[in-house]
């Protein structure tokens, strides 16, 4: 019995031990569950915000929907800047796709340069691509390349062809100095632009109209909020802001006229600016030589850029907007009006031109271009024959303090305000200017130079066309502009200012003097008058701008071809037509062209021919294009 009782006891002990252990285990189980439960509570209650945001960040993606850039048209609706689809080859960012192998396989079918491959790897390393995103390998695929890739796509996994719009200028270098070009947004742009509005886009206007009206042309980026899965595939759309496509711009520019201008300038360096005198619209704006803007859009090679940069003819410079030339004799009508306004002369005032002018007690001879002088010269003759002496003598009498402010009224020395970036204001000298910039007093000799548009005086071809249009409008000055209309809305032309003359008749008489330049038998440009049968008359003024100060005596002995080309005089011609019903004003500058009436004059004439002889343009309502309703 005892044995069994001890046996029983040990059994009971074992029982008790076991029961204790079991209880302990049960408690451990409970506490384990509580640990897990509190972990869940921690994540789901305390940290809920954080994880809810995280889960939204995973699945919600804001996709930018880039706007389509506005098209730029000329006055007749021809496309000057547009967007063309371009195709790029990409590799999909997934772990299972080995880029090295893919590139090797692609090399069998298309060319892949080392540079393209290096750029690909650089982008892959530095940019944070989500799984499923496309990493660009080669851009601007040709049709042939696209075909080759598409045929072989089934064998090469992990590639994708993507398309996007690229800016294209169908008229190549004809429009560059007007429209400019776009190119890729760079880091310094990023500091100034609204990044949000530019997300999803790569290009920004760099020069010209593209830059001036960047906001209008760009539009507004739209946003689409989509739900994506872990493979970056779009599941559904959640929300969206519709994009605003860029506005289409219609310019005053006439591409036919522009083309003609370039053909006329041919191999000469120079510029032609033509303005519509009824509203200030710029009809032609040519700077020769020019360059192809399409080269710049996707990024130009250093080599090509250097070619442009170091070209002696400097194609990158916009001569029409920023070329500074002495206006020379083309300024004489303005100076003449100044003399009349201040009553230094009247139309009857006559001098006897000996071929030179001398200041009191000064032996220095200020020579006329005609060695022996023009003889009896009144203002009309002085304009028509471009007599320098007349202007020397009377400008000295008038004085720079009255002359300079008068010339300023015609836009000299300040920008016209044309809607292009980078306009230069030229230089209109004055006593104050000389003191400030040269720390010298003003000499009468300076006035003499100024009176014939030489010396310190500088103007851009645009300014020359501008004052010519003021002359043609009898004092109404419209601000030159390129933009005619946005989308379908007509822009109102607002006259900027009026140049008021005490005697309004003088506008008429000066116009007649300019007519005599072309149509009389003594005008400097009379050859233009002979040549063509026209129903209208041209009023113009020739000019010859000195490039190098060759001493006057020496110069007489040299023939033009003996002087090195780049030291020859510039040829200038400003004109407007039709006289009596002015429509168009033109300024032609031919660098080193020597003879204003000989070289530049015929160019101006051809411009008029094209613009005016076309029936549409002679008609008073001719400024309506087919596209719009009534002009202002």
């Amino acid at each position, binding site marked *: 019995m005892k044995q069994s009782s001890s046996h029983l006891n*040990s059994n009971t002990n074992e029982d008790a031990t076991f029961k204790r*252990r079991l209880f302990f285990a*049960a408690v451990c189980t409970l506490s384990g569950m509580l640990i*897990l439960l509190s*972990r869940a509570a921690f994540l789901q209650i305390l*940290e809920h915000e954080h994880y809810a945001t995280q889960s939204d960040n*995973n*699945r919600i993606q804001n996709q930018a929907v880039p706007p389509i850039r506005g098209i730029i048209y000329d006055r007749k609706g021809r496309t000057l800047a547009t967007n063309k689809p371009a195709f790029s080859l990409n590799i999909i960012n997934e772990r299972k796709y080995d880029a090295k192998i893919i590139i090797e396989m692609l090399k069998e079918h298309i060319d892949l340069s080392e540079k393209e491959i290096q750029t690909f790897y650089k982008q892959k390393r530095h940019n944070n691509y989500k799984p499923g995103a496309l990493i660009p390998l080669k851009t601007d695929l040709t049709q042939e390349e696209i075909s080759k890739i598409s045929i072989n796509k089934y064998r090469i996994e992990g590639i994708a062809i993507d398309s996007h719009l690229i800016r294209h200028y169908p008229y190549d270098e004809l429009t560059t100095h007007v429209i400019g070009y776009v190119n890729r947004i760079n880091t310094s742009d990023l500091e100034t632009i609204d990044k949000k509005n530019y997300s999803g886009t790569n290009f920004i206007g760099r020069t010209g109209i593209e830059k001036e009206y960047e906001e209008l042309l760009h539009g507004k980026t739209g946003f689409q909020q989509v739900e994506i*899965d*872990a493979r970056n595939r779009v599941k559904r759309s959640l929300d969206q802001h519709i994009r605003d496509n860029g506005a289409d711009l219609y310019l005053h520019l006439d591409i036919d006229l522009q083309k003609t201008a370039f053909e006329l300038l041919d191999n000469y360096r120079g510029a032609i600016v033509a303005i519509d005198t009824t509203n200030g619209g710029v009809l032609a704006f040519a700077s020769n030589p020019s360059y192809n803007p399409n080269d710049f859009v996707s990024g130009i090679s250093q080599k090509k850029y250097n070619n442009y940069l170091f070209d002696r003819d400097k194609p990158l410079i916009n001569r029409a907007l920023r070329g500074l030339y002495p206006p020379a004799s083309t300024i004489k009508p303005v100076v003449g009006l100044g003399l009349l306004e201040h009553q230094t002369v009247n139309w009857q005032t006559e001098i006897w031109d000996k071929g030179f002018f001398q200041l009191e007690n000064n032996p220095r001879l200020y020579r006329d271009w005609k060695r022996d002088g023009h003889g009896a010269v009144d203002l009309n003759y002085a304009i028509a024959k471009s007599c320098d002496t007349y202007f020397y003598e009377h400008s000295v009498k008038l004085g720079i303090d009255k002359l300079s402010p008068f010339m300023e009224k015609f836009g000299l020395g300040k920008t016209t305000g044309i809607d292009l970036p980078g306009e230069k204001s030229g230089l209109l000298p004055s006593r104050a200017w000389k003191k400030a910039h040269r720390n010298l007093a003003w000499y009468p000799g300076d006035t003499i130079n100024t009176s014939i548009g030489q010396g310190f005086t500088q103007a851009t071809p645009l300014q020359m066309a501008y004052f010519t249009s003021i002359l043609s409008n009898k004092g109404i000055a419209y601000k030159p502009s390129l933009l005619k209309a946005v989308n379908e809305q007509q822009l109102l032309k607002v006259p900027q200012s009026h140049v008021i003359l005490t005697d309004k008749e003088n506008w008429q008489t000066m116009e007649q003097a300019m007519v005599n330049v072309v149509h009389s038998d003594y005008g400097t440009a009379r050859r233009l008058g002979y040549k063509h049968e026209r129903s209208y008359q041209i009023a113009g003024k020739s000019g010859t701008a000195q490039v190098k100060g060759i001493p006057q005596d020496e110069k007489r002995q040299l023939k033009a071809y003996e002087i090195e080309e780049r030291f020859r005089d510039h040829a200038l011609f400003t004109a407007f037509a039709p006289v009596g019903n002015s429509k168009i004003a033109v300024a032609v500058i031919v660098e080193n062209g020597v003879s204003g009436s000989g070289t530049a004059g015929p160019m101006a004439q051809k411009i008029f021919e094209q613009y005016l002889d076309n029936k549409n343009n002679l008609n008073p309502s001719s400024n309506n294009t087919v596209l719009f309703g009534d002009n202002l």
Partner: protein
Amino acid sequence: MSNNDFIRQLPKHQRDKTRSKLLQKTHIDFLLLMALLSIIGFGLFVLYSASGENVAIFKSQLKNLAVAFVALLIVAQIPSKLMYFLTPLGYTLATALLVAVFFIGISVNGSQRWLSLFGLGQFQPSELMKLVMPFAVAYFLSRKKGKPKFTHIVVTLAIVMLPTLCILKQPDLGTSILVACSGLFVLFFSGLSWRIIFSVIALLPAGAYLMFEFVLKSYQRDRVLTLLNPERDPLGTGWNIIQSKTAIGSGGISGKGWLEGTQSQLDFLPESSTDFIYAVIAEELGFIGIIVLFSLYFLLLLRCFIISANAPDKFTRLLASAITMTFFLYIFVNIGMVSGLLPVVGVPLPLVSYGGTSLVTLMIGFGVLMSISTHRKHRL
């Protein structure tokens, strides 16, 4: 009077006993069965969503469950005495198979864990070992009286370590730890002295560190490091844990709604039907869903503890309690891993994750419990 009429007029406690004759005949523990069915039902509900409303997977899981229940029923019929008798054979066989894996085993993804069943598919001997281990240790220790003495402990360790090392070498760290634990639980329940237990616990940090530095392979070390800071490799090893925590946390208190979990439905959460299904529950059903899950598990475990407490002899009580604790261990490891408390190991959430092998193994274990519960000396 018919039989039913006779039963009807018996006092209640006697009536209940006769009514449960059907259950007794089939050796089904009613409460355990109910607990199992509720958890399994909940699991199916969640699986449908986690699989992305994939009917094929859902049906496949039903098939798995059918097979598993059949296994449970079969095992429940076997009296514990028979199991006891078969244990040495079972252990030897399982160990032999484990050794065979080294010679003729099939490798997948760099680990050699499977044996070919010649046409019937593949089979993992380590799964068999998971079942057999508690039996083996319980067999040995139940033959000894009282608390295990030193020699007993040594032998027990030998019994446990031999297969464990085999599994470790496959390599399969996760399973080897689970197999070892299932054996060591038995040791605990048999009354291993607390002194020894505490000494071992005290040595654990040092042991863990040593293991980390010298034993663990680099990818395993990565897993531990990623656990501590998942952000160090957000697109690689950290991805699972980051997505899992996001899923759990974003569920909030009431969850995003059944079928509406964005992490799982949009494929951000990997293994959403299998190892990480807990995260789906958390995301879609919220903290409330978690509480429901835990409650169901708790009731199930409670019943298991009660069965263990009422086990008739040493062998069965050791066996039952070890099976119970092992089951709890699976739950703890899986949920701990999915919540970012433990490193990622491939342990599914018991009875809920999609997968046949795990279900069958678990149900056999519950079958054993049912057998223990229902094979009693009838008192009538």
